[in-house]
């Protein structure tokens, strides 16, 4: 870990106070902290790349990013997956500029250095004439990342010393399974990744999906709820749910929250067909059996979740996205939709249509998230505003670890314990250089 003169360890440590629930706004807007994040968070964490079904066949590839580093995610002939830097080792040109596709080789369009689908440099034009057998091609292939999958989700990590993905996901796995392990058939991605730019810091987006049911239960999405109400029903006629919980991972900064037995928000987002499918259908009952309880299969509703740092998804709504950082003040959202692989076609179609209607750049819910986040970010231009101390104290000290229904550290649905957990892990990643102290 390179040293930073402006941000020594003790100064970074003063930015987040887990015990008192206080956050310093500089974590969202400081350029040097952001550069440190690229190295200390994004180059050491498991980052969501895509889904197994995005690249089913040998040679299928996806172009995406780890932080700001462009990477190619490629299915191999033995069904394994490689992730490597999309950058030629000769003069740095991208090896592929297709968003996705199928390749037999990746040939650089600058000078023609050719790579196999595993990312090995295999051919250099005029090699004999200009290198006279002096070039060891095995030394000049693009950097490879570690790759692993969990329930069809592909993650990559630059750090050879980082924990295995399974350990990294820690005790958050049962909560991921609510969306990704409902059926023995697994999930598939609906085709198409929607990408858009939001001038905001990545942590606002990550934190909201990690820990913030509060904004949905209060102000942000009132008009989104109104958009899905049947004719003759107004906002005054409905009750905002309040019963539910939040989970803070014991390690890793992951978090989730959900209502229990209160379908109101889910219904407003996904409509009656999907609400029935995920809470009361024969498929939902099968999910309960598979997940070991009716609670995990059918009774958690309107769930939000983030796997630190930038993998966020909404079980039951089934949007999933990576928040790719683009400087302290901007992100690119790369969002897609998953469905149970064995869901009936009309259910898959309903998931597709409702996600387009609600959780997308033009979605009646997500439009307003984009509005909040950019306004927050703009205010940081002020000399005072960029150093404001923020209150993250909801549910401080209230979480328990022996909840009858839910494993792990559990608080109220309108807590911010998961957010504090996310920032506390961020702080550790930013200040602890060694996995010996950092590991789970």
């Amino acid at each position: 870990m390179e040293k930073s003169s402006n941000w020594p360890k003790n100064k970074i440590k003063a930015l987040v106070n887990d015990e008192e629930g206080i956050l310093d706004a500089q974590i969202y807007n400081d350029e040097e902290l952001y550069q440190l994040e690229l190295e200390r968070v994004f180059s050491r964490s498991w980052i969501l790349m895509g889904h197994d079904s995005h690249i089913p066949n040998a040679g299928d590839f996806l172009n995406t990013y780890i932080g700001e580093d462009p990477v190619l995610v490629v299915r191999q002939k033995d069904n394994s997956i490689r992730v490597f830097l999309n950058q030629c080792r000769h003069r740095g040109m991208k090896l592929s500029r297709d968003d996705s596709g199928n390749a037999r080789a990746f040939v650089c369009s600058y000078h023609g250095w050719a790579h196999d689908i595993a990312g090995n440099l295999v051919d250099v034009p005029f090699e004999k004439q200009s290198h006279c057998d002096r070039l060891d091609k095995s030394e000049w292939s693009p950097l490879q990342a570690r790759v692993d999958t969990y329930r069809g989700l592909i993650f990559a990590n630059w750090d050879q010393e980082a924990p295995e993905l399974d350990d990294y996901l820690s005790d958050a796995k049962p909560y991921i399974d609510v969306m990704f392990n409902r059926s023995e058939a697994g999930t598939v991605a609906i085709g198409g990744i929607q990408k858009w730019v939001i001038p905001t810091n990545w942590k606002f987006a990550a934190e909201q999906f990690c820990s913030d049911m509060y904004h949905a239960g209060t102000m942000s999405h009132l008009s989104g709820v109104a958009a899905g109400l049947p004719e003759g029903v107004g906002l005054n006629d409905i009750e905002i749910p309040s019963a539910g919980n939040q989970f803070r991972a014991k390690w890793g900064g992951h978090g989730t929250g959900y209502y229990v037995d209160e379908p109101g928000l889910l219904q407003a987002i996904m409509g009656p067909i999907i609400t029935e499918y995920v809470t009361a259908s024969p498929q939902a009952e099968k999910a309960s059996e598979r997940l070991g309880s009716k609670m995990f299969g059918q009774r958690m509703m309107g769930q939000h979740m983030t796997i630190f740092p930038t993998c966020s998804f909404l079980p039951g709504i089934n949007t999933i996205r990576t928040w790719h950082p683009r400087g302290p003040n901007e992100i690119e959202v790369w969002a897609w939709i998953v469905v149970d692989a064995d869901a009936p076609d009309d259910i898959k179609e309903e998931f597709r249509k409702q996600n387009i209607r609600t959780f997308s750049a033009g979605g009646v819910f997500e439009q307003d998230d984009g509005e909040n986040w950019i306004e927050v970010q703009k205010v940081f231009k002020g000399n005072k505003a960029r150093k404001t101390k923020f209150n993250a104290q909801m549910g401080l000290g209230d979480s328990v670890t022996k909840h009858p229904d839910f494993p792990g550290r559990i608080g109220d649905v309108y807590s911010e314990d998961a957010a504090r957990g996310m920032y506390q892990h961020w702080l550790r990643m930013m200040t602890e250089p060694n996995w010996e102290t950092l590991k789970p």
Partner: protein
Amino acid sequence: MPFNINITDIIASPTTDIALQHEVEQFYYREALLLDNIRYEDWFALLDDDIHYYMPIRRNRMQRRGKLRSTDLAEYTNEHEFAHFDDDKTTMQGRLTKLLSDYSWSENPASRTRHTVSNVLISAGDEANTYNVCSSFFVYRNRLETQVDIFAGERHDLLRRSDNNLGFKIAKRTLLLDQSTILSNNISIFF
């Protein structure tokens, strides 16, 4: 393909009668004025009951001999895939309800927009009194203090003659936006 207009056909189609051309263009100018003056309900009334309002996602694709290699690798997402918009009358009504709710933060305060429609090419639709219209749009959005977004693209409309005051209703609108990654924090306006 969800597109209701074939570019080859429309390029080859005979030049439209000048009166019809005038009528359709005048309809678009008036429609744009409604959108740009936040007359949401009046604009919504121009959508026919079977409206399909659709904007596929556009991807970066390498070409071979000026063409895409296979339909699996199409530049546009297909009708079974993700899209920016894929709305019917009910979901458009929901969008209208959102805009009129006072809590629609993404459009309250409202964006200032300017819809410009040009390059209008008309061919007869399959049914009587319907027209397939291909046009270019340019939408400027200015929002709050300093936000500026520019959207350009192609509209493929199916217009149906109507006895409303503007003479037509919109039965289909497919929008081909000239962006892959949307360069805005949201798309909370209509095109």
